[in-house]
């Protein structure tokens, strides 16, 4: 069993080892120490804090990371810290650990975007898995953020008319309908559409529509929804 878990951990270790940092906020010294020890033993970089305040006050490196957070903390509690981070627009995946979690607490944590909610004592693999998953999610989030930024910059290159045509195209309207909508000639719409496809580097209509979704652009036509 232990062997199996060890081999499993070995596997994940490779994946998770790519420059990810695990932040630990734990008031209990021995717990903090053991967590640090554990993450370090699998080759993860660990930065541990005794309290949320401590973490907020430090400068965090902008790398793939996750946060292992004790729910009960003196001063600012874990859940409050979660809210505070969200308010500060820090989207670090959080793994809650607690001595005695209850359903209400875990629901609240998960709703707040927690990756996992572990009840002490837990086996190392659970935590490590959670940490890997969290870092993975962070990595993905970071990648998504890069894609959106690229699309956005492309979208910014569109003229307002082209942007309007793009939004309507994304809703699935035909050129004629778009022309009527915008009060343009169908031919003009076709030209704008060509510009949009080109500027957005969309390979197909489906591609464009997915881009629109990624950008989160909505048309202002309520009767269409």
């Amino acid at each position, binding site marked *: 069993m*232990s062997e199996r878990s*060890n081999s499993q*951990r*070995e596997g994940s270790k490779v994946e998770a080892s790519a420059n990810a940092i695990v932040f630990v906020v734990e*008031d*209990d010294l*021995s*717990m903090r*120490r*053991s*967590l640090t*020890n*554990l993450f*370090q*033993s*699998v080759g993860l970089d660990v930065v541990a804090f005794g309290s949320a305040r401590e973490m907020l006050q430090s400068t965090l490196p902008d790398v793939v990371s996750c946060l292992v957070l004790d729910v*009960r*903390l*003196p*001063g600012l*509690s874990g859940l409050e810290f979660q809210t505070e981070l969200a308010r500060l627009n820090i989207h670090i995946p959080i793994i809650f*650990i607690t*001595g*005695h979690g209850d359903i209400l607490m875990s629901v609240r944590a998960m709703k707040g975007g927690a990756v996992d909610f572990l009840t*002490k*004592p*837990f*086996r*190392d693999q659970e*935590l490590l898995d959670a940490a890997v998953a969290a870092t993975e999610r962070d990595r993905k989030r970071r990648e998504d953020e890069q894609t959106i930024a690229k699309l956005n910059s492309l979208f910014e290159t569109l003229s307002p008319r082209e942007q309007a045509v793009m939004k309507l195209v994304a809703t699935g309207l035909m050129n004629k309908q778009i022309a009527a909508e915008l009060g343009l000639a169908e031919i003009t719409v076709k030209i704008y559409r060509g510009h949009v496809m080109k500027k957005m580097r969309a390979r197909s209509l489906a591609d464009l529509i997915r881009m629109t979704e990624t950008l989160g652009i909505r048309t202002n036509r309520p009767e269409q929804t």
Partner: protein
Amino acid sequence: MYNQINNFKRSATQFTFGSITLAVVTLASLYLQTHFAETAFGYLLVILLFSLIGSFIASSALSILAIAALAYYFAPPAFSLRIEDPQALLVAVAFFTVSIVGTHLNGKVRQERQAARETAAELRRSAADLKDRENWWRAIFEHNPSMYVMVDEAGTVLNVNTFGATQLGYARSELIGQSVLGVFLEEDRALARKRIRTCLEDITQSQTWEAQKARKDGSVLWVRENAKAMLWADDRPVVLIACEDITERKRTELALQRSEAHLAQAQELSNTGSFGWNVATGEAFWSKEIFRILQLDPQTVPAPELVVARTHPDDRASVQETIDQAMRYPRDFEHEYRLLLPDGSVKHIHARARATRNATGDIEFVGAATDITAARQAEQQLRRSEAYLAEAQHLSHTGSWSWDVHGLDFIYRSAEVDRLFGFDPQETVSIETIRSRIHPDDLPRLKEMQQLAREGKDGRFAYDFRILMPDGSMRHIHSVAHVVVGSDGNVSELIGTHMDVTEQYAARERLECTLAALRESEQRFRDYAETASDWLWETGPDHQVTHLSEHTSAAGILATGLMGMLRWDIACDVEEEPEKWRQHRARLEAHLPFRDLVYRTVNRMGSPIYVRTSGKPFFDINGHFLGYRGVSTDITAIIRADQAEQELRKAQAELAHVTRVTTLGELTTSIAHEINQPLAAIINNADACLGWMNRETPDLSAARSSVDWIIEDAIRASEVIRRVRALAKKGEIEMLPLDINDVVKDVIALVTRELISHQVTLKTELTAALPAILGDRIQLQQVIINLVMNGIEAMDAVTDRTRELVIQSSEDDMGHVRVAVTDSGVGIAENDADRVLDPFFTTKSSGLGMGLSICRSIVEAHGGRLSIVRKQGPGASFRFDLPLHKEVVS
């Protein structure tokens, strides 16, 4: 003269009225025009009538006047004195004659009547004179203060005067006609009869004698009677007796006779003879007693020489001298001498004589000689006994006295009385001086005794008083007295003795002191024994009970019939505790004292009691063992109280335990967390350790660190478990010296999680190096946990401020270690503050309300005090002070 004037007056009156009447008649006749003769007749009537008044002259004058009137008015010629008518003249003459004669006759008759009247008056006067005289004589007879009796020959009383009858107590009528012998005593009657006869024999001779008469009431009257016979009118001889009351004289005579007899008797009885001696004539008179004293024949002619002859030779000269002196100088004398009588006896004579001058002018000595032999002897005897008495009084310090209760002074006091008061018997001491030596405190009592004596009359008194001597010493006097009642029936004096009892007093005081000391000592030991025990006992050499004395306070405990029993027969726990009794008996056999043996037995009512007894052997002077003496106490109540206290303590511990466990229940989550935490760390470290080991190049150093941490965390976990177990344990209370900060830290370890979960910030302000206190760690932890938990709970509702709990430890000036737990919660309502520490008081919906109450009992059991402290701002502060561990203090 008077008569003449009287006659004249009468004549004048007669004339005047007669004239007027004549005038009236004249007028009437004129008016009626009567005739001469008729008028004359009318005039005649008037004149005769008036002649009755008496004066002839006036009547004559009236007659003339009438003639004149007749002649003038009625005889013709009218209005002329001339009478012309012879007939008328005749009538006038006749008229005149008749009137004169008539008038004269009238006067004659009147004179005769007058004479007769005077004769009659004369007769009446002489009769009255006679009567007066008779009355006079009778009065003399009656009222003369002598008795007069007149009797006839037969002795019948013919008359007696009232005085006489009254003297004899009779009325006259009762005596008259009765025999005079009736008033004589029976034995004198014959004599009386004889005397009357004597009187009658010679009537010229008056007789005088004295006799007794019997009064009607039987008393006797002595009378002197003078009797004489006389011949009464009809020659009847009667005897007149005049009696004079001589009772008084007779009585005096008798008294004199009696007193003479008495005197003679008195002389004889008092051995006193009287004598008279005429110096000039040499005549002497001796009373009978003198003869008797001198043992001389009464017929002997008395003479002073006889006295000298009888005088004791030693005194003869002085007697002779006295007689010679008396003969020379007529002066009173008095002397004493002895007689040597023919029978050889000696008599003491005391003689006194007074010189008087008799009727003839001679000096005469009258005196008395008294045989005072007996008195002399008595005197000698008295003197001797007085000497004895004085000596006895002196030796026994006893003085006798007699006290005048009215005069308030001694009538008599013996010399010893003076000596008792510290005075020389020779000197004169006033009653005030004597009194001044009496102890002032005793004076009222003495006065009271006198008062009692006066009122009591027949009482006998004994009383004590003190005399203060000038040198400051004090004498105690015991006085015994009795009252003497005087002739008036009142207490007149007190007779008594004063006895100096100073020595006896001192001796008694010494004895009393010794006795008191002895009593006090006895009482003291009794008090000790009684205070320390309920009863005393004594056992004999065989250890059987010989004596039991229950104190009144404990009476009724002991069962009856314990005498003669052995202690182990009385006890009920011999079988339960054989070892105790074996040891006890061994001690008794060894004759060793024992202390505080406790055993169980039954009381009088049969209920079991516990007795604690101690005893000590006692021995006689030869060292032979006699038994044990000791005390016992019923300690049932103490034992019961001990049991009750133990049970109470047990119950309290039980309750403390229950609340502790309850608290642990409340802490479960925190405790679980406290255990979970190190367990989780252990797992992490263990996993990490494996990780370090499984590396291609195992990192042994990191693995070692991991193991070290595993051990550390495991220890931490076991610590928590130990604490929890300790709190949950139902253990004995262990009082050990403690550092209160350690206790606080233990608690913090248990409640940290609880604080965190309630988002309470804990602030600790523990003073370092506090002195140790003596206490039970668990119980003190319980107190602090309770206070912390209450603080946490009180802050649950607080959302607008920091939830802060402060635990402080310090040492105060009074030598106490103080722990305070302060929260910033809802605080305690003002009116709950007093009750917060009471059992079952709670403001929570759940909970027994025992927490603080138990905290308080625990703190108080540690000799400390739990209190609520007023605090600024919100929240409450509880504080407890614990005394320092005594060894630390000392």
